[in-house]
């Protein structure tokens, strides 16, 4: 169970792009196991993280989210054997765009999550929230 959540807790708003076949089931598993994370975390599932567009990430940070997390398939992607490299490229391009408009690139994070990575997901969310909370407020999106 993630620490520091519950009624009254305030946490940075995090948008997670998950993958329908692999990482989203892992996030579902966190729910099935009743592992808690902040209610300020929301998820959009896509078929493959290689299809996430940098402009979506920028849009999310310009429209109320404090951070965007790419929950990629890692080596398990069924579509693309170079999915890791493609997803890294997308995150890097989004970070470049963010720098150009004065938003901290640390607001984008990426990690591989498998379909049983429920505990890892909660840990990622807790750690990412802590990172986002520590960012200077003037850089808030």
């Amino acid at each position, binding site marked *: 169970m993630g620490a520091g*959540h*519950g*009624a009254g*807790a305030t946490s940075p*708003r995090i*948008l997670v792009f998950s993958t*329908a*076949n*692999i990482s989203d*089931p892992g*996030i*579902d*598993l*966190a*729910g*099935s196991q*009743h*592992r*808690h*994370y*902040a*209610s*300020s975390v*929301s*998820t*959009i*599932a*896509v*078929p*493959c993280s*290689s*299809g*996430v*567009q*940098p*402009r*979506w990430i920028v*849009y*999310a940070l310009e*429209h*109320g*989210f404090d951070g965007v997390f790419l929950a990629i398939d890692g*080596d*398990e*992607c*069924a*579509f*693309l*054997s170079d*999915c890791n490299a*493609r997803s890294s*490229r*997308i995150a890097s*391009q989004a970070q470049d765009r963010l720098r150009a408009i004065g938003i901290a690139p640390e607001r984008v994070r990426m990690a591989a999550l498998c*379909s049983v990575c429920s505990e890892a997901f909660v840990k990622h969310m807790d750690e990412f929230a802590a990172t986002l909370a520590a960012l200077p407020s003037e850089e808030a999106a």
Partner: protein
Amino acid sequence: MDTEERVTPEEPTDARRRIGVYICHCGGNISDFVDVAAVRDAVAGDPGVVHVETTLFACSDATQHDMIEQIHQDGLDGLVVASCSPKLHVPTFRAVARRAGLNQFQYTQVNIREQCSWVHSDDRAGATDKATGLVRAGIGHASLSVPLDPVTVATVPAALVVGGGVAGLRAAVGLAELGLGVTLVERADHLGGAVGELGTMFPSGLAGRDLVAQLVDEVAARPAITVLLETELVAKSGTFGNYEVTLRGPAGSEPVTQTVGVLVIATGFDSYEPALGEFGYGIDGVLTLPEFTHLVDSSSGPLTHAGRPVRSIAYVYCVGSRQPGGNEYCSKYCCTATAHVAVEVAKRDDRVAQYHLYRDVRTYGVYELLYEEARKRGSVYLKFADDEPPAVTREGDQLVVTTRDTLTADATLQIPVDLVVLVTGMVPTANHDLTSLLKLPLGSDGFYNEIHPKLRPVETVVDGVLIAGASQGPKTVSESVASALAAVAQSGAMLLKGQAELNPLVAVVDDACAWCGACASVCPYDAIEQVEIDGRAVARISPTACKGCGGCAPYCPNEAINLLGVTTDQVQHMIAGMAGDVHEEVLVS
């Protein structure tokens, strides 16, 4: 249904969309932690929403019936169901949409159970706010949904099985039993694969070669199966359900072309071949596990090697497996195979000293019995540290294995032995041409990758191309056969209806395209080609070849590619919904 649970918002006068929203209690699984009535009231006035209600169980027959009536009554052109994970009930509600005459792709599922109520049970206000945002995101998604029709293709009741090992043979028999025509191709000049060379196996005691002989007899007894030896798949065209495959036989023979509905790839594995000098490999008396197993299986009586009796053996585990920078995966069958061969050796002569130098013993499940029997029959297990593997040397005429036993006195031991067996695992078969031809994704271990290891364990992203046996990773014989039968069942599900539907959620190109070729260069499925429209060169994406990953879209400099179901507009509306904004432009877009 309590009428108070329903809200019919004031009719938006300029709305083009008419969306119905159902918010599920899931008994109390959702409503115990989320104020579903508050969610209903919050979204009731959102653009396009003409009906919203809470329901005790959205998936119940009664609610499904209500949904269909409501779709008819209100002329809904969009349906949002906020309940459990999409993994559970998307087929249920797509069927509801179809029965109501609503296009199934204008229904959107919102997960407010696994990703909301169950993870925020200590934060009712937060969970309710989040659920409201998620439902708004679903409404935003549905408001931009378009009717789509799956591409329906006629299927040919025939299958091509590539690989004549135990998995391929069993798949061929199973497919024929379903009434499908089967062509089984094997590039060697005989059937049986690796199992066909094995002696007795655990737990049946049946020899691998006898098991294969049984299967070969079963294949021969079925006229629906055609076996082509020394034959390889060299070309494939067409689409799922109707693939045209070209098979090239022995030198001098004419290639054969056939039409099949599915392909089952069961190309097996290769055994890891140590480099010369790796754990003493190359020294006389140092064998790999397959070489030693063959020595045992092909002889009887007391064991001899090079004409000399074998009185002591050291097994060095994990050679070529679990190596950082090499094969990092566990081959998982080798601990069991080694325990088995050690038992066979002990049965012949219980005076043979057998030392097992291991990192971890992974004789899972029933194979634990084999590990126990090996120990009872005198095998000694010595654990070495991951970063301190044993050394194999020859001193004069004597092989010596040096290891530090971490579990007892932590002493460094020098063990003189007659044979050293390097316990090698499975590696992917060298199949570059086939892999490239079929465009099958490989995992980091080099084996073929299924869509999902648990939920879709034999399907690949290439429609109608299934994988079985050790082609998808190290497996025991029983696991290989189980996956082969899974591929049989899946083939039947695909072909026996006579037609199949392809996912219509594929990438599409809009007018902003000014053909640069970037998208085509990154599509491993050759789904994108250059065409000319009104004198302009643009990209065209084949809806049957596209796998719907969207991987091409981020490469388009003009942002002209969208993936249906997750278009940029839809994603932005979802983000806005989650953030608490409502896109009014949906009304007039």
